[in-house]
């Protein structure tokens, strides 16, 4: 029960931080996806069921604040959580560099799917901005990941 409360508390803090991210911390107009990092890091430190429930919750929170009709983040976060779980059963994810690479891969996948979804909706995005939102945002997410990993590890301990 205490763990659940801690996870929910961190989820709310991260969602608030994501929504009120200071402009001076933006890197090339991008910000890290803190909720995605938390969702993936939960798979490394907690039971998959807990991670999946949190992925759905995080996705719902994110979807509530973006102007898309479909609950795309709820679907994607659940999928990334499941893929990370499958991957961690195939390879060792104890090494922090491996975890960073997984976060980077998930961020690239998430941003690519989001970008394609937006383009598919008939919207126009210049190539430079499209690539920036995929690559730089994903790298920034991976760079910010160790801080969230530490936080998740503390909750799990």
């Amino acid at each position: 029960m205490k763990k659940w409360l801690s996870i929910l508390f961190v989820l709310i803090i991260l969602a608030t931080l994501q929504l009120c991210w200071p402009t001076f911390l933006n890197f090339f107009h991008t910000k890290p996806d803190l909720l995605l990092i938390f969702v993936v890091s939960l798979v490394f430190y907690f039971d998959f069921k807990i991670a999946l429930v949190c992925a759905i919750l995080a996705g719902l929170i994110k979807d509530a604040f973006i102007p898309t009709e479909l609950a795309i983040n709820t679907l994607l976060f659940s999928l990334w959580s499941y893929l990370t779980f499958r991957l961690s059963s195939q390879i060792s994810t104890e090494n922090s560099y491996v975890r960073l690479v997984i976060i980077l891969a998930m961020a690239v996948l998430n941003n690519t799917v989001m970008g394609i979804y937006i383009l598919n909706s008939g919207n126009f995005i210049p190539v430079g901005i499209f690539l920036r939102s995929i690559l730089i945002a994903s790298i920034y997410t991976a760079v910010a990941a160790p801080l969230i990993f530490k936080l998740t590890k503390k909750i799990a301990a």
Partner: protein
Amino acid sequence: MVEFDRLSNEIGILRAKLFDLREIEQENARLKSLIGFKQKSPLLLVSARVIARSPDSWSSSVIIDKGKYNGIKRGMAVINTQGLVGRVVESAENISKVLLVNDPSQGISSIVQRSRQEGLVNGSLGSNLIMRYLPEDAQIAVGDIIITSELSQVYPKGLLVGRVVNIGKEFSGLSRYAVVKPSADLSSIEEVLVIIP
């Protein structure tokens, strides 16, 4: 030594107070200009504060602290003292979601103020907007002012959108496009005005 510590502590407190005062002074200036604009404008306006921003890099939106309780409904145009900011896409009791003009799903029917040339202004997630569907012989030049047209179903006619900073040819070669710098600084908006039709 004790006196030194006490004075250092006092300096710290005074610095923090000075910082707060500067912040209040800036806010005061912004609100004064907002009130002045509201009083002079013939439009019925509701002022609101930006409380959150879009959580991802794929959309450009903000959350404001006014909602249905203050008469704000979906589809209403949002401006600030500098120009057009966006439109309300969702409104709850006390908050509303505003889609900014630089969101890629935005399409604003606009005209060049000087030549009355029509075009569609789209967001591009970047700091500039793109005015598309301009004919090959369009009467448009760098520096021209872009305003909303009366064809727009959402925005009232004549709202300042921005200024042309570049003109180019579409990939197909059939039409031209113009890069428009929005008049409102979208990256740092703190207070906005919602137009009540």
